[in-house]
């Protein structure tokens, strides 16, 4: 990321904060419905040292990473299998396209019945939601591996497993990682909405609904939302960073073509 982009990005954020501040302070919008930005950020700072809120964050992170990791462990091998055996891939395609559009949140009632433990329930819904983007990216990446690259290793006498390991997987890896990054952002939405809708003991979503108990504290609600956003941003940046560093060859090649 260039210095220019950081400066402009920071300026954009500061501008939005200032605008919200003005809108609220001047009474253009009711301050209890939309508290001034500084108030929200102040509350957010307090939350960072609030043990109870940190336990909520930990519970959300646990379900988030657990569900995502499980989805990676299942979807990548499955995608590799479906992507490298054309017949299987074709047979599975219809099923995948049928299952994929079902929103995870629609399965919350089912998950409640199936899992007594709230962490398990959240993880299973995240797993479901993350499975598809990772599976589909893996499957298509495997099918799109350059045949010339595969043939060139094959021509030196390497067998199918070697070609898979040394050519297909490395060349699919950037696309698989992109799938994981998409899945991670989907997973955050799923975990927070599940917590909001299904309740439980700990979680950022639980915290958010607790702010609405009694009179309702919009500033606290927004402070929690800020942290949820920060979590999503960090996960995205971490995975983007991984893509940039580990798959430099990929971005460099794309730039060369563009």
């Amino acid at each position, binding site marked *: 990321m260039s210095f220019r982009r950081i400066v402009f990005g920071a300026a954009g954020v500061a501008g939005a904060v200032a605008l919200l501040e003005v809108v609220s302070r001047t009474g253009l919008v009711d301050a209890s419905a939309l508290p001034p930005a500084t108030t929200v950020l102040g509350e957010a700072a307090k939350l960072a040292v609030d043990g109870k809120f940190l336990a909520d964050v930990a519970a959300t992170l646990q379900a988030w990473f657990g569900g995502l990791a499980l989805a990676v462990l299942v979807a990548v091998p499955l995608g590799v299998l479906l992507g490298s055996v054309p017949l299987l891939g074709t047979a599975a395609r219809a099923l995948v396209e049928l299952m994929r559009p079902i929103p995870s949140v629609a399965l919350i009632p089912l998950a409640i019945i199936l899992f007594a433990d709230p962490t398990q329930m959240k993880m299973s819904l995240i797993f479901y939601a993350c499975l598809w983007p990772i599976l589909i990216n893996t499957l298509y990446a495997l099918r799109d591996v350059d045949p010339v690259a595969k043939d060139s290793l094959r021509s030196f006498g390497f067998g199918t497993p070697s070609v898979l390991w040394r050519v297909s997987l490395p*060349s699919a890896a950037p696309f698989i990682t992109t799938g994981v990054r998409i899945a991670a952002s989907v997973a955050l939405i799923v975990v927070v909405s599940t917590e909001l809708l299904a309740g439980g003991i700990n979680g950022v979503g639980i915290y958010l609904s607790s702010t609405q108990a009694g009179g309702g504290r919009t500033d606290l609600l927004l402070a929690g939302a800020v942290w949820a956003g920060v979590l999503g941003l960090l996960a995205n940046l971490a995975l983007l960073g991984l893509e940039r560093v580990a798959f430099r060859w990929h971005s460099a090649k794309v730039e060369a073509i563009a």
Partner: protein
Amino acid sequence: MLQITGLTHSYGGDGLKVLDGLDLTVPDGQLVSIVGPSGCGKSTLLRCIAGLIQPTGGRLTLDGRPINGVPDDLAVVFQDYSRSLFPWLSVRDNVALPLRRRGKSRSERRAAAEEALESVGLHDAGRKYPWQLSGGMQQRVSIARALAYRPSLLLMDEPFGSVDAQTREDLEDLVLQVHRTEKMTILLVTHDIDESVYVGDRVVVLNRSPARVHADLPVGLPSVRDQIDTRGLPEFVQLRAEVGRLVRGGARVPGAAPVGAQPAGVAEAKGAGAKPAP
């Protein structure tokens, strides 16, 4: 010995033949230049020999055994050299990777890779990545990869198309030298008629798709060749002219070239003056 009889191939289901009854026999240790019009099926022929595609008809044998699957001890320099290199590996690792099949240690593989890169004039590119190199340099990396492997059968598909004239001559001489010292059988596809005569023990001309052997000319030049002297020899000039005519679809001029003992599958040549098959 590579024996090809009646090789026929069509891609997909359209039944349009790319190769149609091609016959070719290559004794061990021969360097055969293959020329023919663009799109006539040269790359397809090499893919069949490499066992990368299953031809729809005909017989291919290597040392008497039918080719199903990739033969042992083979290396291919692909026409799409840049797609055949692995962008996630450094240039040196690209060259060293196939040597895993040779049971060499990591340090031996690296040393062999550096040596092969040196031989194609890329001594300081080993740590770079293929996408950081020019097209001509990438092409040399793919040649180095094939040479480092020391195959007994080497298939080269327009291996010098992207390099400058000087480097091209150096690479031609490198192939000739490797061919002499390692005694490998080499099939080299080229568009350059001069090159086909200069490097070849024999020039095979394919005709327009569906391809067959249109003419098969032994090159009666001294086996040690020199870029200046050899190209000045009257035999060279004569042979080059004849190959040129044959590629353009003309008939063979009788007696224009030295006629040696020719293997099977000679001259599907059409028209007047075509040399009758022995």
